[in-house]
């Protein structure tokens, strides 16, 4: 990792240089260093395997320059970047690329101006994560795996299952997943901002799936941390325990069921349907499922959702955005009413100047300034804060709350008879985001609910959900006060997801042929 001091110095020197360029109207230099370390786990008791399959890393550092060039036909904006070079030559090269690629974008007004809000989060990262060794990385992967194997080895119930052979391993234990550590450092300076700012963050996540494959039993475990010391391999143990609980799974018939969605399905719905529809960009391009409904009721009045990027101890937190603006809380849905959207500076400006803004939002933008505050302009593109990308809109920590403080037992009592869905997969807006239609399959951690209690586990991969997100949001029956930091594959945000009871969800039985083939 490149030191924060070096990144800051590069930004300062770069900014001084950019200010001196005669054709440059305004400019910004973004300098970043990212390390992504992953120990990928793959254990299969019935197939030769490595245990820790991929102890690996990817690293990068470099700088990007966004510059606005004076031009007789109107200002032109360009982005250029230079990998691996934090010297002034790097800035010059990036500026030249920005100059060559500059275009006239009629929606561009100015680079981000200072926000009336101020930064509240500093020095929140874990310094020990920045010095993780190769051996530490490898051991983190093995720790997760051995915690899972310990659970399998000590499970008395498995001895009975292994009746067809003397070996436990023939039951087909699978432990897959990873420990991922993402280390990010950045500095940003802009002719529009008063000073060069820096930020440093660490994200530590573990996500594990375990199976007793012969029994079609699957369980999940995961953990999101900001401190390396918190990564004790618990995700492996949890996944194995959940897989063991899923042994003896049953099928269910097609129909509409009252359901409780666990934190992972709630996160899937958030990341694939709801949050993409809660950005100013999706209102601009007419793709939001909530198009034209700002200020209106879009969900049951029990539901509140907000994004907060400036909380200590939360994995998605950042001190500043990749536009150099303070992070903070953005209220999105309050008591079921849509009151705010995630935005970057560019998207807010574009919406404010869009003649069709009233139709797109549902209200004139000047009537709802607090709904369009740019606190979420980030340069996420996989592997940290990317110096070679322009900012786009991304959530940080997303919180979901209900008005009434409920427990899982409360929700079970409400549902009485139905289905607890603990993990879903491939959740997509099957007819486009705007329609709200979605589908997914139920892949594990799920149970029948009978007489207000969790009963038989549901077999993995035998149920498909076919429904619409608006119906789900309208049919909320209750939300637990307890939530859990949850991430899903390839998502940058962390959803602090509760369990949510929904009165009706359409479930379709699938893959009957698998029981006989």
């Amino acid at each position, binding site marked *: 990792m490149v030191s924060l001091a070096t990144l800051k110095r590069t930004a300062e020197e770069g900014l001084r240089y950019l200010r001196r360029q005669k054709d440059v109207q305004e400019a910004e230099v973004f300098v970043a260093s990212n390390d992504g370390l992953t120990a990928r786990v*793959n254990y*299969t*008791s*019935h*197939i*030769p*395997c*490595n*245990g*820790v399959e*991929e*102890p*690996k890393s*990817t*690293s*990068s550092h*470099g700088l990007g320059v966004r510059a606005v060039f004076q031009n007789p036909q109107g200002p032109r904006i360009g*982005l*250029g970047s230079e*990998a*691996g070079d934090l010297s002034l030559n790097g800035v010059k090269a990036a500026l030249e690329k920005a100059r*060559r*690629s500059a*275009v*006239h974008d009629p929606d561009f007004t100015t680079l981000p101006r200072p926000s009336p809000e101020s930064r509240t989060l500093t020095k929140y990262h874990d310094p020990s994560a920045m010095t993780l060794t*190769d051996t530490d990385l*490898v*051991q983190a992967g093995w720790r997760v795996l*051995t915690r899972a*194997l310990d659970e*399998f080895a000590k499970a008395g119930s498995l001895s009975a299952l292994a009746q067809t052979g003397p070996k436990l*391993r023939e039951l*087909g234990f699978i432990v*897959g997943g990873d420990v*991922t550590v993402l280390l990010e450092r950045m500095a940003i300076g802009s002719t529009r901002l008063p000073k060069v700012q820096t930020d440093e963050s660490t994200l530590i996540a573990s996500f594990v799936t375990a*199976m007793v*494959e012969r029994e079609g039993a699957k369980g999940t475990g995961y953990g999101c941390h900001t401190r390396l010391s918190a990564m004790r391999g618990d995700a492996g143990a949890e996944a194995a325990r959940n897989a063991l609980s899923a042994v003896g799974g049953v099928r269910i018939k097609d129909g509409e069921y009252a359901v409780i969605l666990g934190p992972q399905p709630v996160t899937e719905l958030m990341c694939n349907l709801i949050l993409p529809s809660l950005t100013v960009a999706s209102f601009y*391009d*007419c793709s939001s499922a909530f198009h034209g409904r700002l200020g209106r009721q879009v969900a049951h009045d029990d539901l509140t959702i907000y994004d907060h990027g400036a909380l200590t101890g939360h994995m998605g937190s950042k001190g500043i955005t990749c536009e150099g603006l303070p992070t903070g809380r953005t209220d999105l849905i309050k008591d079921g009413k849509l009151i705010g959207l995630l935005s970057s500076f560019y998207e807010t400006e574009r919406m404010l100047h869009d003649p069709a803004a009233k139709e797109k939002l549902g209200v004139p933008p000047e009537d709802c300034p607090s709904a369009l505050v740019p606190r979420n302009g980030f340069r996420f593109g*996989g592997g940290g804060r990317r110096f070679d990308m322009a900012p786009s809109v991304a959530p940080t920590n997303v919180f979901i709350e209900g008005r009434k403080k409920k427990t899982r037992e409360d929700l079970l009592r409400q549902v009485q008879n139905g289905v607890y869905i603990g993990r879903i997969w491939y959740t*997509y807006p*099957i*007819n*486009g*985001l*705007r*329609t709200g*239609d979605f*589908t*997914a*399959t139920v*892949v594990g951690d799920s149970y029948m609910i009978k007489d207000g209690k969790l009963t038989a586990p549901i077999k*993995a*991969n035998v149920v*498909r959900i*076919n429904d619409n997100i608006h*119906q789900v949001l309208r049919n909320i029956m209750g939300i637990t006060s307890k939530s859990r930091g949850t991430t899903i*594959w*390839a998502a940058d945000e962390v959803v602090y997801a509760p369990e949510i009871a929904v009165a009706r969800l359409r479930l379709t039985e699938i*893959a009957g042929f698998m029981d006989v083939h």
Partner: protein
Amino acid sequence: MMPTVSKAITTDLVEAFKNSAADLAAEAPDTYKLCRYADLRIEVTEEKHAGSENGTSKYAFEDSHIACGIRVLAGDSTIAPGYFGQLLGKADLPRLTQTLASGLKRAYARAVANAREKARIRDKYKDLGEALSDTRLAPVEVQRDTVKAEYAIDPRQVCLDDMVRYVTEVSRAVQDVDEQLKYNAVSAVTLVTRELFASSEGACIDQSFALTTGSVHVVAVSETGDQELSDTIGHQRGWEVVTEGIVEEHIRNLDLLTFSTNLARDAVKLAHAPPLRSSDKDVAVVTDPHFNALLAHEIIGHPTELDRALKMETAYAGRSWLLRALNDTMVGKAVASALVTAYSDPSLPGFGHYKYDHEGTPGRKVVHIEKGIFRGFMNNRQTAAILNVPPNGSCMATEAHLVPLVRMSTTVFAGGARAPEDIIREVDKGYYVVGHRIPSIAESRENFRISAQKVYEIRNGQIGQLYRGGGIMADTKTFLMKVDAVGRDFRLFPISNCGKGQPMQGRRLGNGGPTLRSRAHLTGPA
């Protein structure tokens, strides 16, 4: 010896570093005492992007970048892997050999630490530890070769301003199609990539390819409904792919202007069409080659990737219903009607084309289903060794700093003998499913729901009413077993983004097929 390098990052750099990189890889087992194997990949890409929205220019981007990835297998009492990857820049060029050497050292350290832990855990867990085995690579013939990129208009010579002007004109033309088009975005990418693969076994493969793609996204809103549509054209060729289109034996790639305005017209028609009603039971469906490209991708390509079948993607992209255990597979069993043959073939043209994979194995055709009988999987050297079969060259990474995975090349349903119009004409009551949109597939690929761009009713052999929001859902094996007609209209299409691995690697691939007829549930808006 330090190679002489140019000051800019260009694909020519690979020439300058070829020998030193090959030497570094070849000498790894001598340099590091526990090293059993090492390979090293370097990739240089020169690329240009341009984008527009609603008839106005939005962005342009021109850059070149270099990345490296290193794999080491090492250990004493057991063998395990370690990896290292890095994105590099111009400033790294004078010390590239040292950077690669340092990366090799890191990958070796990880492999050694991994091997030690593997041995310790294997001993500790006895029965459950028995599966922890040495990492072995199935043997391949060592290759030394150079493969040139193919193009008419060199992506490196395309003027960025011309690209911006072109996509902006296309976007404007889309906007002019109908006032009910509320939004459109048009983009294009053209690039040349040169990849070097060198291994401790002596392989040294230098292969280049050009790639050009154009994409369009439209939203149409009428008084009665709305419709979003997106689609992509593309080929491993130069800028001519976008401006002129490409017509080859199996490819009908329209120019981006015609392609985009056609899609816009479809979106407007669909916004006025009634929504499709879901069916309670199977109905006759005729699926067109564009729809079947995504179907082949999801229900043939993915479940026949051997790393999935061996459970290595259980936590991410999923497993495969075609292999439960090494002694419980579908190989040799009927999984489709006798009319169905499906295969992957990297020699086919398009996004999925290559001569060697990222382990230096020559890519070859892999037959997955032969007249209804399942035959086998795509593999890499590690998974081939587990099944004790020859490697078939199906191991690719999205970029050099990422770990290669088993990936489909161009996976297709083979063409048949029937005229597509006859396949439709024989249907008394059914639906014609045209163009793919969005897939959702069950974890082991045993069930799918895929939405279509357009669904038409078929009545008495004639195509009738158009519906929006439609698609089909079926269990994979049931759908394949019920295929009762296969067209002769075999076509190939680009698939612009397929995710796999952790961190997720999004990769461009090729897929295709002819018109098929089978039975499935219709799916409409909820």
